[in-house]
């Protein structure tokens, strides 16, 4: 029996595409966010509220959305109604978006005249966290109806996330959700990350989330992760 040492990175191909995306984003001066959460966490409603609120902001970020789904174009249609530039990415069964798919979609948008791209990943708390898309930040979206223990049950996503949006907080009075415990679990896996308590229905808490998006866009320009060629 012979042992042949290999040491080949199994995420290498995805990482190469993610690196190409980072180059493309830097070239066009775009910041990219990757929203990850379970099906029904309220990702699309949060996006709708985000698109409408950003349109009213002084900064006027030029936004496009890449909608990842297994099937149907329903989410993209919802955003298109808000006159948002949107592309639907259908994975045809796959449980996550991969960097190559996102890179092609970005290239085809086309990426000119944009400041911000938000990717809505396939609804899933596990697999999307594994795949770098070349984004500036992963954002974990967790709804209060899912239970407070999700951060420690799905630690990879909450560890990798640069921010957490806790949605549906208007439902808190009707639920046994332990907010204090949830925030403790979030600190346990990833202390120091901002947590936004929002209701996309009532608009509560949306302003802080929008501020964070604006600051993240400015920071990526300052850090040279994107060009400031506007």
């Amino acid at each position, binding site marked *: 029996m012979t042992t042949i*040492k*290999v040491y080949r990175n*199994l995420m290498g191909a995805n990482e190469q595409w993610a690196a190409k995306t980072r180059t493309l984003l830097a070239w066009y001066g775009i910041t990219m966010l990757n929203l990850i959460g379970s099906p029904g966490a309220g990702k699309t409603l949060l996006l709708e509220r985000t698109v409408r609120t950003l349109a009213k902001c002084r900064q006027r970020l030029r936004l496009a959305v890449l909608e990842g789904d297994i099937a149907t174009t329903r989410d993209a249609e919802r955003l298109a109604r808000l006159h948002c530039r949107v592309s639907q990415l259908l994975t045809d069964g796959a449980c*996550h978006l991969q960097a190559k798919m996102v890179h092609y979609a970005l290239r085809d948008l086309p990426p000119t005249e944009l400041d911000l791209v938000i990717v809505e990943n396939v609804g899933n708390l596990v697999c999307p966290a594994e795949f770098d898309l070349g984004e500036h930040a992963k954002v974990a979206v967790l709804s209060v109806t899912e239970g407070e223990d999700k951060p420690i049950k799905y630690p990879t996503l909450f560890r990798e996330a640069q921010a957490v949006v806790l949605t549906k907080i208007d439902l808190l009075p009707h639920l046994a959700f332990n907010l204090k415990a949830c925030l403790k679990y979030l600190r346990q*896996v990833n202390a120091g990350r901002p947590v936004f308590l929002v209701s996309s229905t009532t608009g509560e808490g949306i302003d802080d989330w929008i501020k964070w998006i604006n600051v993240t866009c400015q920071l990526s320009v300052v850090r040279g992760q994107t060009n400031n060629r506007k």
Partner: protein
Amino acid sequence: MHELSICETLVKAAQAELKKLPPGARLKTVRVAAGKLHQIVPENMTFAYEALTQGTPLAGSVLTITPLPISARCRACGWSGAIQDLVFTCGACGAGDLEITGGRELYLENLEVEEDD
């Protein structure tokens, strides 16, 4: 089932390595090292491996997965150590500002091959 996508890459990598060997070499074991931050379920991975290698020169080889621990370095006090029970706080000062130094690895480590004498 992200294991399926990862396994596709693994099978391609193992096939490429096997091609470099003299004819008659039989692949017995494929060893993968997976950091614990990767949430690789070994059963899902071996199931995907068996399904993807059926009818190929890799068929019948066994996939083994070595889990690698999560480790971190504290940005506040410089402590380095293992992360236990997914509590991402410093083992010395309790701070939460940690740099992950291990647990994100995912690579094909080695192949065990039987060759004709």
